[in-house]
C-alpha cells in the first residue's frame, strides 16, 4: 500500500514545467495542496464525478501540455461512464491517477465498491483505456513518472493506498472563480 501524501508530494516536487495538475474533490485536493501553493494546480472541492470529464476537456484544449488528474475511487465510481468517454475520444496527454483507498475516508471510511469486487484497472481496460495498470508500492514511482510525461495516453493508473485520514490542507481560495482564474493564468489560449 502506498502512503498517499508523500507519494503525491514527491511527484509535485519534481514536476516539469509542462505539467498541469487537477484533483478530484476531498482528500485528493488536500493531497495536491499539501505540496505547496502552485497556480498550475486546480483542485475540486465539490461537483463529485466531474473531475475526469474536466480533465478530458482540459487535455483536449491543451494538447501540448501534460495533464495529470489525481482523484479518488469514490469520485471515479460516481462517473464510471466518463472512462468510456475518455477511451473513445482519446487524448494522448492525459494521465488519470486514481488514489484508491477503497473507502469514503472523508465521511467515516465507509467501504467503496473497490473494497468489494470492483477493479478499476479492469474497468479502464474494458472501457478501452489500454494503458492502465495498478501500483501498490512507492517503488512504482518511476514507472508512473514515465507514464505521466512520456507515454501516449490516455492512461489510468490505480494507486492502491492506505485508507487513513490525512490532515486537511486547503487551497489558496475556496472561491472557484479565484482558483480557476489563477490556474488559467498559467495557460496559453
Amino acid at each position, binding site marked *: 500500500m502506498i502512503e498517499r501524501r508523500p507519494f503525491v508530494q514527491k511527484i509535485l516536487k519534481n514536476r516539469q514545467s509542462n505539467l498541469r495538475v487537477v484533483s478530484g474533490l476531498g482528500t485528493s485536493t488536500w493531497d495536491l495542496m499539501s505540496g505547496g501553493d502552485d497556480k498550475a494546480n486546480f483542485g475540486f472541492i*465539490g*461537483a463529485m464525478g*466531474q473531475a*475526469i470529464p*474536466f480533465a478530458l476537456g*482540459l*487535455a483536449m484544449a491543451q494538447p501540448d501540455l501534460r495533464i495529470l488528474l489525481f482523484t479518488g475511487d469514490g469520485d471515479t465510481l460516481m462517473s464510471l*461512464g466518463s472512462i468510456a468517454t475518455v477511451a473513445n475520444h482519446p487524448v494522448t496527454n492525459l494521465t488519470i491517477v486514481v488514489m484508491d483507498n477503497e473507502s469514503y475516508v472523508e465521511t467515516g471510511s465507509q467501504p467503496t465498491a473497490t473494497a468489494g469486487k470492483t477493479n478499476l484497472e479492469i474497468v479502464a481496460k474494458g472501457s478501452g483505456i489500454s494503458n492502465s495498470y495498478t501500483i501498490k508500492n512507492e517503488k512504482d514511482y518511476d514507472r508512473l513518472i514515465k507514464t505521466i510525461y512520456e507515454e501516449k495516453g490516455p492512461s489510468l493508473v490505480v494507486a492502491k493506498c492506505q485508507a487513513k485520514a490525512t490532515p486537511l490542507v486547503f487551497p489558496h481560495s475556496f472561491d472557484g472563480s479565484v482558483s480557476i482564474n489563477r490556474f488559467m493564468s498559467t495557460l496559453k489560449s
Partner: protein
Amino acid sequence: MEGAIKDWRNDIYKVFKELDITMVSHVPDAGHTPLINLCEKDNEIDVVTLTTEQDGVGLSCGAFAGGRKSALLMQSSGVGNCINALALPNICRIPFLTLVSMRGEWGEFVPWQVPMGLGTPKVLEAMDVKVFRADYKEEVGSTVDAAARFAFNTNRSVAVLLSQKMIGAKQFKNG
C-alpha cells in the same frame, strides 16, 4: 430542392462558427441530429459523445479553462442528470452553454417524458441557469446567438430550450 428546406439547425451551427465554439458534446436526441451531423463534418469542431449529460458540464468547463468554447446538446430528460454538476461552472464563473431539445410538452405521446419535461425550466432556474426559449424556427438563430453571448460575456450558465412544438411531431413519427 433549392434551399426550400432551411433547417434551423443551420442557424445554430452558424452561431457556433461565428462565436468560435469548437467543442460540442452530447447525449444524442433526434431533435439535435442534423446539428450533430453538421458539427461532425466540420474538422474545426470536436464532437464528444457522452454516456451521461452531466459529464458534458465538466468537459465544457475543462475545455474553457484550456481556452476553448463549447456547447452541450441534450434532451430535456438529461437536464436532471446535470444538477449537481452545474455547481462547477456556477462557483468557478465559467461560461456554460447548453441547448436542450424539449420533450414532454407539445403533443407528447410518451407519458414517461412528461415529468422531466415539466421540471426542466424549474430545475435549471433553481441552479441559477439563465433560461432562454425558442418556440419558432425563425427565432432560433437569434436566441442561440443571444444566449451564447450572454454566457460568454457574463461568465454565466445559460440554457436554450428548443420547444417540442418547433421540433415537431414529424421527428417522432418514424420512431
